[in-house]
């Protein structure tokens, strides 16, 4: 090998060494940045993949990011880079040439002979570089290949109808209007409240406040209707008795009931039509039928028909209005109500128990579901009310006992029901 070739060889070796050292400086400064960048990319990719398919834009963006961090790493490591002169000195030391290389590069001596390839000047410490590299690739693989469920946009359910109670309210309003019994102003307030609910934004229709207001309105309408019908029923019965009485005067009790029913119909949430109210008021003031019978009958028919409309509209049992009572009839409170005559069957118990039915349990059917309790039973007994010992008293307040009985006998005498008293009397004997 001629001298020029030897010099070229050593210079080439030096340049190669310089590139090698500079590359590792660049890697040393860049890989931590790349690792941090990949951490951020993983998070971004996992989020993006949920929404989008990663297309070429992502890979171009990633490449741009890597390039950017590569440039930053270059800027950070540039001050550490070595030139071929330093590399030559480094190579000289590594080969043990005692300065011959850098002296030869200055022309002081001839180039030392090339003695084989020689051992590498530097070894790579894999821990640092490969750790960062592997972690970066791992992060990237996680971001790209971790299974991610695609986000599917669920269509928003469109609210097309309000709560059922609104429809029921509207039906109730139409029923009430069809009955021709209630003043329009009374129904207008309900309509106004219902409209205010309907006019809300659709997304608020089923909000807690809206549903609560709807329930309140429905409850109010129901209570008002029941109260109205009760008052109307009372007024109709009073008017019916007046009609039956002909020219006679109503009893004081009927007058009181009529006045009360008129007052309720006037002051209730649902007010009776003004013409009907006027007729009833005239009757109540005069105490006798000051209107001609035909007009009275028309009024009763109209009221009965309207009440029937309301009852049917609200799903109530059919209401039959008839001459239930007359002055000669026993009062329903006396327990002698007639069955099978079409009127409501009062659920009353006679003050005097029927000896014939003593000891029997009877199921009493009552179609008036607004007032009756399902499965309610009545019991008849031969025991009289007078059998109770009113003086017998048990514990009293004031931390004092006043017991006039003897032991447990006082308890069953005062607290037990009649049948229980019989059982206890049989058990303990006649004490």
């Amino acid at each position, binding site marked *: 090998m001629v001298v020029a070739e030897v010099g070229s060889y050593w210079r080439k070796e030096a340049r190669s060494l310089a590139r090698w*050292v500079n590359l*590792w*400086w660049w*890697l*040393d*400064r860049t890989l931590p940045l790349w690792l941090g960048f990949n951490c951020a990319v993983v998070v971004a990719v996992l989020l993006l993949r949920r929404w989008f398919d990663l297309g070429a834009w992502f890979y171009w963006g990633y490449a741009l990011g890597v390039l950017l961090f590569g440039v930053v790493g270059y800027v950070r490591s540039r001050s*550490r880079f*070595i030139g071929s*002169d*330093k*590399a030559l*000195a*480094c190579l*000289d*030391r*590594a080969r043990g040439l*005692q*300065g011959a290389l*850098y*002296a030869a590069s*200055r*022309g*002081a*001596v001839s180039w030392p002979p090339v003695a084989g390839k020689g*051992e*590498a*000047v*530097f*070894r*790579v*410490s894999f821990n*640092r*570089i490969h750790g960062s590299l592997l972690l970066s690739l791992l992060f990237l693989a996680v971001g790209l290949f971790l299974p991610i469920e695609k986000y599917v946009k669920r269509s928003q359910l469109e609210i097309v109808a309000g709560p059922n109670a609104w429809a029921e309210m509207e039906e109730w309003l139409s029923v009430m209007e069809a009955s021709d019994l209630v003043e329009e102003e009374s129904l207008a307030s309900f309509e106004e409240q219902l409209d205010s609910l309907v006019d809300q934004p659709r997304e608020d229709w089923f909000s807690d406040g809206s549903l609560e207001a709807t329930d309140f309105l429905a409850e109010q309408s129901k209570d008002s209707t029941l109260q109205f019908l009760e008052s109307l029923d009372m007024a109709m019965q009073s008017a019916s008795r007046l009609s039956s009485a002909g020219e006679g005067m109503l009893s004081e009790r009927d007058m009181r009931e009529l006045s009360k029913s008129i007052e309720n119909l006037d002051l209730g949430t649902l007010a009776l039509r003004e013409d009907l109210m006027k007729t009833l008021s005239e009757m109540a003031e005069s105490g006798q039928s000051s209107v001609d019978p035909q007009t009275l009958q028309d009024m009763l028919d109209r009221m009965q028909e309207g009440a029937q409309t309301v009852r049917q509209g609200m799903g109530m049992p059919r209401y039959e209005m008839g001459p239930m009572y007359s002055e000669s009839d026993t009062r329903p409170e006396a327990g002698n109500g007639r069955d099978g005559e079409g009127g409501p069957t009062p659920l009353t118990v006679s003050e005097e128990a029927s000896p014939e039915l003593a000891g029997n349990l009877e199921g009493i059917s009552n179609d008036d579901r607004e007032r009756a309790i399902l499965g309610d039973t009545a019991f008849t007994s031969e025991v009289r009310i007078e059998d109770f010992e009113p003086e017998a008293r048990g514990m009293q307040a004031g931390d004092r006992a006043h017991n006039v009985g003897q032991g447990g006998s006082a308890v069953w005498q005062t607290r037990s029901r009649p049948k229980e008293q019989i059982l206890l009397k049989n058990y303990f004997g006649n004490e």
Partner: protein
Amino acid sequence: MSSASTPTPITEARVQAIQTKLKALTGALNQVLFGQEKTVELVVVALLARGHVLLEGLPGLGKTELVKGLSKAIQLKQNRVQFTPDLLPGDITGNPVLQESPTGERTFVFQKGPLFAELLLADEINRASPKTQSALLEAMQERSVSVFGTSHALPDPFFVFATQNPIELEGTYPLPEAQIDRFLFKLQMERGDRSVIEKIVQHRDLGGEVSVSQVMTREDLLEASSMTREVFLPPEVVSYIARLVEATHAGMSQAASGVRFGCSPRAAISLAASARARALLNGRVYANFEDVQALASAALQHRIVMDYQAKVEGISGESVVKMLLEEISPDGVEVPGSLKSAKL
């Protein structure tokens, strides 16, 4: 003096020729001073670099014998001055003496002192007063003596080998730092081991004169010294010397954390000159990192002033230089943590 970056016309053949003589000189000195090869090499380097040497060691280690052997091997005129507290500057430089001529005219004639020698052994220099020390050190730097306004040049070459005893410091005048800086090297004369002592006992008699044959002439020494200045000092080595000297200052390196004052530029010049001399001694026309590393301790240690804390902890200039040689990369190549030197 040649430029550091420009190769000189010095040929390897000339270097080989002078190296032979220099090797003969070191060989002759090693025959006088057993077990002190390193010191002998450094003394020869100092001669080539035209530097003065401060020898420190206990009595009886061969300091005087070294100087005597050197003067005999090169045939240099040698004087010895035993420094004492009452020694005056004129005692070493010389004094004007009133003389009467045959014509009866009286004039002052300068009577040269022991300083006018090619090789001066200043024994126990720290026992002289600062005034006397100063006179000697001025001569070392200027290579001339001024008496009564007249400058008297010292012979060429002119070398001072000063000794000082590290013990019995009572009543001594330690050399100021500025004056210590004038010495090229400060060498520690170490006690030899048992085999060295056996060799000394076999070859030396008590009070016997050392016989050393001449191996070089004065002209050879001057030529070698001249060639030393032509030895190529590559920029890489210059950079290394500069970085080393810079690193001796506090805050410039970890090793110099206990340093109060670091080395001066004169230290860098001295180290560069001695590196050239060593290269010549080793038959090279260029200096290298190894030359610097071999001479750094001798050239720099006495120029480093430690702070009080470091002195208490026993950290010396020598230990600082050793740490610097490990800390400072000769080629200035820093490698990342991901690379490890395979061979260095």
